[in-house]
């Protein structure tokens, strides 16, 4: 008597699908691991800032103003004699907070609109796509400037402005994916098996969109950091009293003509590093899921 060997293929969870390419071997792994390491380092530094900063980042006159890096102040002091090292350690908190908030808003608004719009199709879809394309084609910084100058300079408005600027990126990516996926035979099969619209969207289409969303979201993180720094730079950013990389970079340049390089190099370097971390993750991940890039 023979027994039929039954193997049950365990369906892979969405989380599993996201994590396998992260730690599995293959293309883009190096880029991605470096990106993740950089990001974890910066996140840990920002969260633990109160415990690891040697001084109060806002305390004025700790040292001589504009003193170069020394044993006492490893990154020197700024024009008010504040300790740059402590400011760098603290400085990521708000800029990263804005980026996290902006990406969260984008995910909550951009994804559902893209998913439903593409699935439903018709004139509604065309209208939404037209609006989104118009926003997409406009210079992001000018748009963010407009929104903030109308609604006022607050951290929330800054996150909102950046979100509005980047929602079209999510919309476009999700929409183009859904447009092709919804024509696939397996989706028709699901429908004929009696799956309702929400079920088709969430259980059958959505899992195949996630990979592109990860790429867009990580790029968006990097862009949000750069846009926030840009807004700081033109005076529409975070309050100048906060210890923040963007603020330090903006005001540090006033001392540039007298050769004070440490304020801008360290604060700008951190912005660069933070944006780089997310870009590396995005690039590595894209390379893993898209064979064309190899």
């Amino acid at each position: 008597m023979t027994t039929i060997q039954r193997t049950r293929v365990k369906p892979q969870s969405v989380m599993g699908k996201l994590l396998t390419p992260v730690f599995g071997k293959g293309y883009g792994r190096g880029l991605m691991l470096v990106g993740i390491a950089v990001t974890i380092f910066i996140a840990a530094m920002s969260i633990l800032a109160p415990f690891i900063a040697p001084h109060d980042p806002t305390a004025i006159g700790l040292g001589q103003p504009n003193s170069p890096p020394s044993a006492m102040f490893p990154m020197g002091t700024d024009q008010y004699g504040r300790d740059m090292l402590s400011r760098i350690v603290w400085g990521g908190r708000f800029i990263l907070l804005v980026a996290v908030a902006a990406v969260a808003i984008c995910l909550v608004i951009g994804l559902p609109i893209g998913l439903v719009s593409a699935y439903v199709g018709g004139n509604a879809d065309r209208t939404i796509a037209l609006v989104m394309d118009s926003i997409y084609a406009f210079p992001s910084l000018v748009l963010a400037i407009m929104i903030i100058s109308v609604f006022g300079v607050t951290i929330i408005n800054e996150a909102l402005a950046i979100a509005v600027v980047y929602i079209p990126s999510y919309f476009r990516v999700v929409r183009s994916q859904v447009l092709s996926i919804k024509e696939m035979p397996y989706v028709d099969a699901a429908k004929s098996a009696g799956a309702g619209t929400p079920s088709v969207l969430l259980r059958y289409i959505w899992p195949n969109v996630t990979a592109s969303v990860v790429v867009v979201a990580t790029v968006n993180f990097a862009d949000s950091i750069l846009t926030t720094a840009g807004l700081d730079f033109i005076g529409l950013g975070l309050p100048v009293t906060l210890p923040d990389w963007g603020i330090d970079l903006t005001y540090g340049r006033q001392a540039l003509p007298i050769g004070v390089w440490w304020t801008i190099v360290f604060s700008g370097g951190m912005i660069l590093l933070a944006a780089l971390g997310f870009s590396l993750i995005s690039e590595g991940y894209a390379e893993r899921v898209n064979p064309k890039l190899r």
Partner: protein
Amino acid sequence: MRVLPGNPVLLRFEKNADPALIAQYTHALGLDKPLYVQYFDYLWGLLHGDLGLSMAGAFEPVGPQIMSRFPATLELTVYAFIVAVVVGVLLGALGARKPGAPDDSVKVFGILIYAFPVFFLGMILQLVFGIWIHALPVSGRLDPGVIPTNLMIYGHPIQTGILTIDSLLSANLPEFIDAVRHLILPATALGLVISGIFVRMTRANMMETMRADFVTAARARGLKERTVVYSYALRNALLPIVTIMGLQFALLLSGAILTETEFSILGLGSYLVDRINFRDYTAVQGTVVFLAILISSVSLIVDILYAYLDPRVRL
């Protein structure tokens, strides 16, 4: 397209001044009319090329102010664009052609330069070339001692506002050299940051084109590798890049705002930033409308150019 962003509520006046004075200004600017009247007045003016009066300073018309600032921005973006395309295409082609270490460096360069805030790169260039080795000027468009001249035709000055062109037209060599020297740092900073995208695009397109049959055929015919790469593959790989140029233009303008502010260039970007700080809403709105029209025109031109370059696309 989005020709009219902004909203008439923008026009609210914020000022802590004498009430009578406020009333007088308010009336002069038409702000005492209902909002919808203001809105249609604005639209009507816009159709006639009138962007309204500035709300700060001497209430000058916004249109001429924008036009006086625009040439500097145009000049900066054009040179930055040239830097971006040259650096981007050369590096991208190199990366696609030589796998291994050269390709990896190109890839890292592409990612790194994309993560660079343009004003931070500008500051580093200023620090190194302007302050440490005193090789190049770090701000403005001309040295104070250099007097710009214009070509005179029948007593009328011919002026584009683009200094490198004006100085050549009037054969003013010192002015030309000075203008170029002032442009090197900002154009390099902006161009390098934008080049990251061209590096990526060229590299990805080249790798795909190199696998195409016509490249294999060209090799089989015994053509030199150089000819195959540059005359056959690169030409075809560059085609899709034309399409993204329209979108790059928007990115270039965003970058120009920051670059102009960093290098104290009196262009449209620094105008916008100045006006925001003065709460000069008509000027901000006017600039935004101007930019919107500019971007629409550029993307139209790019679309036409693409149809011209690629016979498969018909308008």
